[in-house]
């Protein structure tokens, strides 16, 4: 792959170029490239087994890549030292660790390690009581961790991940098992981290509505590659995901699928015709889910036999 000769700008937090990962004879990642800027929230989407966790673990420095150039906060994660580690937050899914500890006690203990890396412009760690309030665990501060509910525990995981006030936060499926209320609170926390703390956030999720809601940018990983990169809107436009027009005419419901993604032309014609009889007109733009499904179907149908275009067309016909 060609590498651009220009150095990444100063606010480029993540720079991944042509990342490869091979386990034995199986290639899990085959040339992943993307970047992320300071304060950006990036969601990594993809079917199970697409390599999302592998990608994140390479960036966290927990897994050694097979090939490619990776820069995380200006360092190679494979050789990033403890000072580099202090600038990164990893939100892990807890299981049985530290069950005997009390919530506040554990956060205060883990915070101690970051105090050495505090500077006047970037004080670390986070004040424990403030952090407890931010993640909504103030009332549970003195509770033993084993007595927390699943949702409370996940919030503690997030608190642990950000206790050092990281410049970059990795979240692998952060809201798995959250109820809608906890999910919304979590989304607010993500916004707060990105907007006020200027943290860069890379998260993986299976929840497309969540990705659409929290992420500035969405990366779709499938077949070991980034097959789409952009905001939810940009992806829908790039993909020309069909928009649907619903209306009632002569007592009957009608549906038209505008395959170009823009239904304006069709609606204009529809109303210019026997416009008076048209009622209950609705134009449904493509959701991220539609775009995502189209993308992944296209990739997956190409995988077994290489007649990609035909199959893609057939897949789209089936949908319309």
């Amino acid at each position, binding site marked *: 792959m060609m590498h651009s000769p220009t150095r990444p700008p100063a606010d480029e937090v993540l720079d991944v170029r042509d990342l490869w990962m091979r386990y034995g004879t199986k290639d899990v990642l085959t040339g992943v490239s993307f970047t992320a800027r300071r304060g950006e929230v990036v969601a990594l989407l993809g079917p199970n087994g697409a390599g999302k966790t592998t990608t994140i673990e390479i960036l966290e420095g927990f897994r050694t890549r097979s090939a490619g150039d990776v820069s995380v906060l200006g360092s190679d994660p494979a050789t990033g030292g403890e000072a580099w580690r202090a600038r990164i937050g990893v939100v892990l899914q807890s299981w049985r660790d530290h069950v005997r500890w009390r919530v506040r006690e554990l956060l205060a203990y883990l915070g101690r*390690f970051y105090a050495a*890396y505090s500077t006047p412009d970037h004080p670390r760690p986070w004040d424990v009581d403030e952090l407890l309030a931010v993640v909504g665990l103030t009332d549970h501060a003195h509770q033993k961790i084993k007595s927390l509910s699943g949702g409370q525990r996940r919030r503690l995981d997030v608190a642990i991940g950000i206790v050092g006030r990281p410049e970059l936060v990795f979240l692998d499926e952060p809201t798995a098992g959250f109820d809608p209320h906890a999910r919304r609170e979590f989304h607010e926390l993500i916004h707060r981290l990105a907007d006020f703390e200027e943290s860069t956030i890379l998260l993986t999720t299976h929840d497309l509505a969540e990705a659409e809601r929290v992420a500035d940018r969405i990366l779709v990983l499938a077949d070991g590659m980034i097959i789409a990169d952009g905001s939810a809107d940009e992806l829908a436009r790039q993909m020309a995901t069909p928009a649907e027009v619903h209306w009632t005419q002569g007592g009957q419901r009608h549906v038209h699928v505008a395959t170009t993604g823009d239904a304006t032309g069709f609606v204009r014609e529809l109303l210019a015709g026997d416009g008076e009889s048209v009622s209950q007109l609705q134009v449904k733009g493509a959701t991220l889910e539609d775009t995502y499904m189209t993308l992944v179907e296209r990739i997956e149908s190409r995988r077994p036999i290489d007649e990609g275009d035909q199959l893609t067309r057939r897949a789209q016909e089936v949908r319309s």
Partner: protein
Amino acid sequence: MTEVTGTTGTAIRARQDPRAFAVRAGLVRGLIEVRQSLTNASDLTWFFFVPITFTVVLVFMRGSTVPGTDFALGAMVLPSMVGMSIAYGGLIGASSTLAVEREDGTLLRAKATPHGMLGYLVGKIVNYSLTTLFTLVILVIPAWTVRDELQVDAQSWLILAGIFVLGMIATIPMGTALGSLLTSSTQTGLLLLGSVLLIAPSGIFYPITALPTWMQWVGQAFPFYWLGLGARSALLPDAMAAVEIGGSWRTAEMVAVLGVWAIAGLVLAPVLLRRMARRESGSSVAERRDKWLTRFA
């Protein structure tokens, strides 16, 4: 350390050594874990179970004497138990919790924290040292049954303190190294079994000189025997050295063997621990959790 330049930056650097922060955090961790152990019913049961078993053993030994002497066997066994408890506390404590805490993700959290592994290790050393010390204090209960035979003076306490410190240094790093070799917490049972088998050739419940020569050699390769010997030298009348190998307390040899264990442990532990920790990641912990849940749920 973040690249800080200029005079103020250097000042910050000099004042804040991240390793010093990690060591202090580790001390806090150790104290918190000790408090948790001493307020936990199952831990406390275990701490008292061993000395109470020892008391029962000593009661049954009443009337028996060390072969070839008229010295009470129980009074010889008690210091051996002190030595064994030191070795157990360091070796088994360190290796068993390591396997469990690797499985449950505690180690991964340490790894995700700057100098977190250093803090974790310091915490473990504080934890095992203090809890072992606690089990030694409870040995006063069995010791009471043989109090008239023991010879306790200022020198005894000095030697006991010495073998405690040397014993911890000889066993905790090695226990950590052994624990790093285990691939699952279920294997800790094997380690426990192995060390129980080692009691026989270690001269804990019977003088080692009464054993076949090959067993004497096996016993002398492990710290159980040497720590027991050290404790006997602290608490028994000097005449009792006659039933030991070579008719002496062999203090120099004891320091040498425990020293070799300490050095080997201090060399191996960081290497093996790092090797084990390198493979830890969110998905490896998740994998073990799933395996565990399917096995036990």
